[in-house]
């Protein structure tokens, strides 16, 4: 045990040099995302402080750390609970998919509950916590534990009246844990002014993780932040996390993103006349595409075309529908000649419909990550991405989208996001915020001119492509979106609607031919 401590000393000194990440041995928590932001896990052989308010997930984080340690890393663990009884812990863990009973039976996990109630104790003179040390020491030795969780050790202050003694004994306890060489999580309750109510952070200073739960516009969001990690690179940003029936998921990190490889493979937009507008044959594989416009401008139709084309190629598509039900979408698309039903039946298309307000923002993101990870689609549609704004602030949505986009880019997934802008232009700001994350941005409008509404599409940007700058008119037909031929006025502006028809001398408005020439300009 002591050798482990000794071995680390020169390393931690070296960490001042230049390669801190290599110097420090780490114990993976096995919690999705947390090991990424800590570059490999918690400091091995040392205590980590996990603090936060009531109900923020401290206990669960500790439990998962032990369960993963026991199951995946051959590191048995001791959970010493000062709050929940062993029985409660097992029941709670079961609801998250962990079978603690089995781990206990296999001697991979030991649960112990310490109950100290001041009213049940009479204090007469000097004492110490040697009983706790013996108890914990015996628990560790009996299953050869490598991991320990103390949850919440501060309860000792409630149970015993001598605060100075408890403080001194806790300091001794943390030194003792280090000497034992176990990787420990010590949880602490946060209060308004301090990280922990009784200043545990003074003793556990190697690694401090802060958990937080906030309610923003009636939906709870959970955040995790690595406040401190001595001798190791870590990201100090707040990251959202989720607790669901799979346990804790911490969301992957933004900075993963720029490592993806850019491909030159083209993917058809699914709209014959639109592909040539991108210089060659549609989007690049792995692009993030934004199609924004006011209500009824054809965003979902554009998405459906893309999905249809992908399924025809035999690719898997995942469609996140945040506004309409899958049956509604398939019915609507059938009316413009796009039949998505066969793709659903053949298992090439999956639709995941959910009201944005039914979950918090990070819950959506985790769900999306999980579905994408499980099914590995080549194409993803988010329709509309703006509905997520209903559950988060603009900045949060942007950060979330950045994560999602990076995540998909790394997997070479081509994603199309629709964005609903409001007629008064207020939501344009959202577009601007989000569009910087996108490779391609298309704007769909239905301007009113000469007493009629027409549909137009333009490419605002398309990274790495010599795209058309034209505003193009299109119509919805029984065969989907069809771009119309360009008709220019003498001043070079593009005539649309009846003005176009008048210039061309024919009324092709109702039954247009899908034009191949149109892109030749």
């Amino acid at each position, binding site marked *: 045990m002591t050798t482990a401590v000794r071995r680390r000393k020169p390393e931690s000194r070296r960490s001042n040099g230049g390669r801190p990440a290599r110097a420090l041995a780490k114990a993976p928590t096995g919690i999705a995302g947390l090991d990424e932001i800590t570059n490999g896990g918690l400091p091995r052989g040392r205590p980590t402080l996990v603090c936060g308010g009531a109900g923020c997930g401290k206990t669960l984080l500790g439990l998962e750390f032990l369960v993963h340690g026991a199951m995946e890393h051959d590191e048995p663990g001791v959970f010493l609970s000062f709050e929940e009884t062993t029985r409660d812990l097992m029941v709670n863990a079961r609801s998250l998919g962990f079978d603690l009973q089995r781990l206990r039976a296999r001697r991979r996990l030991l649960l*112990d509950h*310490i*109950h*100290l109630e001041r009213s*049940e*104790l*009479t*204090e*007469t*003179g*000097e*004492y*110490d*916590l*040697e*009983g*706790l040390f*013996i*108890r914990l*020491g*015996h*628990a560790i030795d*009996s299953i050869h534990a490598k991991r320990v969780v103390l949850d919440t050790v501060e309860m*000792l202050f409630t*149970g*015993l009246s001598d605060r100075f003694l408890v403080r001194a004994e806790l300091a001794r306890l943390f030194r003792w844990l280090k000497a034992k060489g176990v990787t420990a999580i010590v949880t602490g309750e946060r209060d308004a002014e301090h990280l922990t109510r009784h200043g545990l952070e003074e003793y556990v200073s190697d690694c401090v993780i802060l958990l937080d739960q906030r309610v923003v516009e009636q939906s709870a969001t959970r955040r995790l932040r690595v406040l401190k990690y001595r001798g190791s690179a870590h990201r100090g940003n707040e990251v959202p996390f989720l607790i669901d029936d799979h346990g804790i998921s911490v969301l992957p990190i933004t900075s993963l993103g720029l490592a993806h490889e850019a491909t030159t493979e083209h993917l058809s937009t699914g709209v014959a006349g639109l592909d040539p507008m991108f210089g060659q044959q549609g989007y690049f594989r792995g692009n993030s595409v934004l199609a924004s416009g006011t209500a009824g401008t054809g965003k979902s139709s554009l998405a459906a075309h893309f999905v249809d084309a992908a399924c025809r190629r035999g690719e898997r598509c995942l469609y996140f529908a945040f506004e309409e039900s899958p049956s509604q979408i398939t019915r609507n698309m059938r009316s413009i000649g796009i039949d998505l039903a066969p793709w659903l039946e053949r298992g090439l298309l999956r639709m995941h419909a959910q009201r944005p307000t039914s979950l918090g923002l990070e819950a959506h993101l985790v769900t999306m990550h999980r579905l994408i990870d499980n099914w590995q689609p080549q194409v993803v549609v988010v329709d509309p991405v703006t509905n997520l704004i209903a559950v988060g602030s603009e900045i949060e949505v942007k950060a979330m989208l950045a994560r999602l986009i990076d995540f998909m880019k790394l997997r070479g997934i081509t994603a199309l996001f629709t964005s609903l802008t409001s007629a008064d232009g207020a939501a344009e700001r959202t577009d601007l915020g989000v569009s910087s994350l996108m490779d391609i941005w298309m704007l769909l409008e239905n301007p009113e001119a000469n007493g009629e509404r027409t549909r137009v599409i333009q490419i605002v940007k398309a990274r790495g492509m010599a795209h058309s700058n034209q505003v193009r008119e299109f119509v919805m037909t029984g065969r989907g979106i069809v771009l119309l031929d360009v008709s220019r006025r003498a001043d070079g502006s593009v005539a649309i609607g009846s003005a176009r028809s008048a210039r061309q001398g024919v009324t092709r408005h109702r039954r247009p031919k899908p034009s191949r020439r149109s892109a030749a300009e």
Partner: protein
Amino acid sequence: MRNGARRTMQLRLYVAGQSPKSLAALANLKRLCEGHLAGRYRIQVVDLLSQPHLARRDEIVVIPTLVRKLPPPLRRVIGDLSNEERVLVGLDVLPRSASGS
């Protein structure tokens, strides 16, 4: 006289080796029992250093801990037992209200 006081009181003192607090607690306990419970008590000393598994079984955190096993209900007194009156209250030998604890 209270009900339980006539019966034999079974006491168990948890210590950790021969630490000063443990030794003080045992000495204080013996003196106190002779003074107030003569002939009506039994003391068992448990050294957790030699029987560490008992710490968990008997829910011991603090050393020294004195447990009144019988008569029920279970009573726990912690510390070196230097305050005789508080120990007696804690063991229900003296009424609780008297000491204001």
